[in-house]
């Protein structure tokens, strides 16, 4: 240890630090600045940005020693008299963040940029913030924030709107995430992972690791075999906490260690010897389905498929290396195909992305009484409690899960992941254990589903869709996770928002020896929408029809059931298409800038169901004597704005400024039950439970006030904590103190929503609401390089009624940016089963500079939603239609059809070459 002296946020500081320590660790540790958070740990994302002598420094890639004698500024140092300073204020006003994980770094970057460029253009701002990654926002709001900061610094008057507590916390660097949490006496956990894609585990020797001073517990497959339920997964529970006799992907955990610190834990991992007997990898769908392919599992896995509804058959593990098969049939497909004037068959391939949420997956487990207390960056506190109880054989009441806001999720943090193994380490070590995996490890933990989709579509001469047969093969990777549900959704959504006489869809999950795939924003809808909306366009072009017109002819109308027995369409699909077509200038063609580039436009309507299946959510609202409210529910805030939504719902019901509504922390011992933060259900399901809870508490208040005032409760109104009866206004507090005395009292109301099962609906319960994503894209394709530039992207979603408009817009933009990245470059690059870009440096994430030159996120409020006050969620919408709109625009520009994601320049050029060699026009079948 040595003493390191520097000026920290304007104050001289001396801390004890290892001279080889990194600046990020010294600042977040002994210097007490939790806002200096490490995300990628590779210099890439900029989440750890601080200023050293006013210049941006990447604290995860800087020796603390380099700060000796210098002035270091963290985001906490930008406050003025404890209140947000101009740049922080501007980020709050412009809503320049969602989850907040990138925010400290972005604000400091902006501070340094504005010091040098006080009056920047948007283009200059875009280039500047292009240094750091934000996975949530899509960057427009951050650009607005930086431009606003420039104005505030030049003397513009700040907005009078008060900042919310979470906004202040995120912009001034207060600890809010699980990754910021520091419990006393906590050991560090670490996992030894397989270097092999597929191998038998012959022996695991841990003696040397156990003997290392500072090691508190070492676990292997042998330990987990002793558990009541050693495996987990959503329906099929095939994933062991640690590999037992076999590893099934590179990164599969084989052993776990708890030690006094992170370095000792890793040193212990290096002392564990594993004898592997490599088996042939099963890298691709074709490898897995080939005759004689090595089976990845020898026998059936635990778990069961829940009942489905009309027209659906399912099968668990129906064939070697096939995890699950979903089949959905409507009408008589043979008959419809026989009648068709045209049949088109096309195959599409989707790549897979990694979630790259900036907050790592972190769990802290602490033994407590006969059980455990757990903090986890997980979207599903109650499911986690249930899984941990079951896996470890504990009483349910003995497992207490607490959840703080997440630094981004996008599906990566849904369902059980590394929490049970952390819990087991804590029980063995008999102390708190923290397991925080790196971004590299997150990449090896869960991904989106890659897949192949073959669509045969029967069409009448006038372009009317008759029937579709689809075969969907999703690469589920090594373990089930949520794959079966994703297959359901991909299969059910592949018909898109169109009217069909018949459908015959099979969606399979194929196991491979790659990273397990699971929930990812869009959840099967992204894959299905890409294939379906690409093919709709191809059909239109083959039939010589306008792609907008063929859609109009086939779109479902508002009120029409999506499929027989299911809920009705709650949006105006044609109106949304018209809005987007108008904005993109559909039908007009702008001249290309040169001979080597060509411009084109494409439309798409991505589509999915939302709100989850047969969901159940509860909520509780308390009102204090002052009239303030506290809402308790278990939707996890991960930047989607759920907490603010709940505050506004409660505020609206109780006639209360939302600033007077607090959101209680999530704690399974205290919080109202919820089945989890999935499927964009926060608004429509939990939000509705919150509305009902607010109404229930209002009823109790009116009953009480009616009795005290001698008035009919039906004649009372509530506004800012005051009861109005006719012309009389009485503070609630006065009534409470009069009756309950000076020790005061509170009122509590509860509400719940259960979507009832209905076997007439294909997925055994009616869909809660429908989530369309209308997209228009204008692209420019360089014929010599194959580079596709998106000049204009219009993406629209229906919020029903936007309760928090800025959050709705932010969700659409952020999701669209993910969709655009998937269209153009972002993917996990597997070659021969080996992941070639499994680090933040090699995996390309979209930056501000990747935004389309013009980017319109359109919030439609079509008013047909069935959620609270007509609201619907939009969290996943924006990703659904982008890739197909871009593919359609490319064909419009240069006449080539890209059917595999992403549309990298070399693929585009290869397609152009192929077209040049085959000039003959494609005939209509």
């Amino acid at each position, binding site marked *: 240890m040595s003493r390191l002296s520097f000026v920290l946020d304007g104050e001289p500081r001396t801390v004890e630090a290892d001279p080889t320590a990194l600046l990020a660790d010294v600042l977040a540790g002994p210097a007490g600045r939790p806002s200096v958070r490490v995300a990628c740990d590779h210099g890439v994302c900029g989440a750890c940005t601080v200023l050293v002598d006013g210049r941006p420094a990447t604290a995860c890639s800087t020796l603390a020693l380099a700060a000796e004698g210098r002035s270091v500024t963290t985001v906490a140092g930008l406050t003025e008299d404890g209140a947000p300073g101009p740049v922080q204020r501007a980020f709050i006003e412009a809503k320049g963040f969602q989850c907040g994980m990138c925010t400290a770094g972005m604000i400091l970057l902006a501070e340094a940029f504005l010091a040098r460029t006080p009056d920047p253009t948007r283009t200059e701002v875009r280039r500047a913030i292009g240094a750091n990654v934000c996975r949530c926002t899509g960057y427009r709001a951050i650009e607005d924030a930086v431009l606003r900061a420039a104005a505030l610094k030049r003397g513009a008057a700040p907005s009078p709107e008060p900042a919310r507590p979470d906004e202040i916390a995120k912009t001034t660097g207060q600890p809010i995430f699980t990754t910021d949490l520091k419990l006393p006496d906590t050991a560090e956990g670490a996992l030894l992972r397989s270097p092999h894609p597929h191998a038998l585990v012959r022996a695991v020797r841990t003696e040397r690791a156990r003997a290392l001073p500072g090691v508190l517990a070492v676990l292997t497959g042998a330990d987990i075999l002793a558990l009541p339920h050693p495996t987990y997964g959503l329906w099929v529970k095939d994933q062991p906490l640690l590999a037992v006799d076999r590893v099934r992907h590179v990164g599969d955990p084989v052993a776990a260690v708890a030690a006094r610190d992170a370095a000792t834990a*890793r040193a212990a991992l290096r002392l564990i010897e594993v004898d592997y007997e490599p088996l042939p990898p099963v890298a691709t769908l074709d490898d897995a389905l080939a005759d004689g392919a090595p089976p990845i599992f020898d026998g059936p896995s635990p778990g069961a498929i829940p009942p489905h509804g009309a027209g659906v058959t399912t099968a668990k593990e129906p064939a070697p290396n096939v995890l699950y098969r979903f089949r959905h049939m409507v009408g008589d497909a043979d008959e419809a195909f026989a009648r068709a004037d045209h049949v088109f068959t096309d195959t599409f391939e989707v790549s897979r992305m990694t979630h790259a949420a900036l907050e790592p997956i972190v769990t802290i487990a602490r033994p407590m009484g006969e059980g455990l207390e757990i903090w986890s960056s997980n979207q599903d506190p109650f499911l986690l409690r249930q899984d941990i109880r079951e896996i470890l054989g504990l009483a349910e009441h003995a497992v207490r899960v607490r959840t703080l806001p997440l630094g981004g999720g996008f599906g990566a943090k849904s369902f059980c992941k590394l929490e049970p193994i952390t819990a087991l380490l804590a029980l063995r070590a008999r102390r708190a254990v923290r397991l925080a995996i790196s971004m*590299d490890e997150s990449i090896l933990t869960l991904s989106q589903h890659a897949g192949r989709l073959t669509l045969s579509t029967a069409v009448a001469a006038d372009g009317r869709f008759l029937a579709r047969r689809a075969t969907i093969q999703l690469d589920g990777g090594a373990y089930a996770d949520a794959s079966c549900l994703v297959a359901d959704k991909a299969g059910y959504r592949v018909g898109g928002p169109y009217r069909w006489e018949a459908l015959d869809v099979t969606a399979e999950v194929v196991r491979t020896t790659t990273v397990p795939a699971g929930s990812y924003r869009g959840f099967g809808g992204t894959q299905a929408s890409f294939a379906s909306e690409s093919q709709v366009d191809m059909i239109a072009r083959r039939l010589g029809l306008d792609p907008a017109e063929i859609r109009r002819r086939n779109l479902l109308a508002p009120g029409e059931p999506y499929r027989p027995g299911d809920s009705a369409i709650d949006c105006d699909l044609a109106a949304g298409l018209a809005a987007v077509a108008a904005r993109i200038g559909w039908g007009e063609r702008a001249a290309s800038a040169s001979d080597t580039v060509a411009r084109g436009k494409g439309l798409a309507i991505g589509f999915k169901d939302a709100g989850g299946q047969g969901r159940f959510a509860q909520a509780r609202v308390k009102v204090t004597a002052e009239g303030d409210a506290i809402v308790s529910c278990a939707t996890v805030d991960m930047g989607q704005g759920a907490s603010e939504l709940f505050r506004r719902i409660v505020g609206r019901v109780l006639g209360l400024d939302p600033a007077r509504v607090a959101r209680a922390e999530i704690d399974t011992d205290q919080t109202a039950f919820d089945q989890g933060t999935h499927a964009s259900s926060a608004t429509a399901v939990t939000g509705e439970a919150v509305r009902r809870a607010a109404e229930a508490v209002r009823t109790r208040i009116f009953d009480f006030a009616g009795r005290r005032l001698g008035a009919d409760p039906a004649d009372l109104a509530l506004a800012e904590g005051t009861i109005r009866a006719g012309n009389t206004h009485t503070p609630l507090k006065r009534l409470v103190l009069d009756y309950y005395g000076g020790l005061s009292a509170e009122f509590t109301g509860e509400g719940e929503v259960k979507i009832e099962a209905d076997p007439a609906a294909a997925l055994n319960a009616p869909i809660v609401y429908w989530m369309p994503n209308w997209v228009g894209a204008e692209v420019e394709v360089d014929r010599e390089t194959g580079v596709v530039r998106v000049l204009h992207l219009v993406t629209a979603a229906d919020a029903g009624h936007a309760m928090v408009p800025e959050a709705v817009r932010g969700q659409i933009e952020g999701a669209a940016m993910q969709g655009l990245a998937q269209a153009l470059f972002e993917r996990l690059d597997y070659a021969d089963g080996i992941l070639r870009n499994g680090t933040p440096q090699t995996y390309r994430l979209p930056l501000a500079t990747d935004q389309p030159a013009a980017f319109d996120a359109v919030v439609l409020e079509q008013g047909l939603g069935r959620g609270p006050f007509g609201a619907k969620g939009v969290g996943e919408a924006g990703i659904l239609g982008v890739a197909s709109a871009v593919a359609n625009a490319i064909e419009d520009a240069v006449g080539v059809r890209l059917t595999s994601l992403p549309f990298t320049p070399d693929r585009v050029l290869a397609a152009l070459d192929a077209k040049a060699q085959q000039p003959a026009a494609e005939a209509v079948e």
Partner: protein
Amino acid sequence: MPTPQPHPALPARPVALPTLVGHRGRHAMPPFTVHTAASFAEARRLMTLRRARPLAGGLDLLNGLKTGAGPADIVMLERVAGAATIAIADGDLLLGPMVTHDGFATSPAARARVPALAAVWSEIANLRIRAQGTIAGNLLAGMPAYEAAVLLAAVDASLDSLAPDGTSARFPVAALGTPTGAARPFDHLVTAIRVPCTPLRLAYDRSLRPALSVAVALTTRLRRTVSIVVGGLHPRPIVRRAHVSDLDAPGDLAARLLADLPLATVPFAGSPFYRERMAAVLAARLLAELAR
């Protein structure tokens, strides 16, 4: 003065810990010792005696250590007197090894004397990296996709260095080998980057990075020399030079100069032929731009 030798008691360096899948990161860094040097001579001595690697901005060196392998000794150049200065000597611009991308791109001297180079340099990387990353570190990191070598080779820059035996050396950037290859001034301490202030026109295309980037320079002397430099395909950039009388047929010229471009050896996702083809396309475009 006798040549200093590594201390015989020192362990073999660099150090490498067994790889742990997924554990690249700061917790995987092997133990190392940090030295601070006040002069180039002291830094060079530490490099020789302890086989220390120089640390400039640290972006590559520290992130490299996070793989579990790297030097057991590091010598910080930050406090070396004059290491961050930009000077003019013998008509050349002399960049100290602590000059950052940003320091160079915004320096009045660079903007006045090598305006085209300073202008393209402001496009490299991003605001945050430019503020910390040095040009010397970029060159010496040995990363094929990095751009300093491409641009500096195009303008015929050279490096001043101290060899392990303490002797001074100067060699063109274009002759810089690979960290493990035969031409290895990698064990030298670079003390300055020498950028000639020759009037020239420079055009650069980095739009296909990291697959490749191409720079084209044209001297405006009586006898015009065109240099085409292609980076990203091979461990070090490929440089092609020719005297030209005009640039009337840029496509032909690019094709001729790059006709024998060796097949790319640096792996990249996608078709291997794409990048070679693009080298000629981008070079032709840049030549056409210079011809305008």
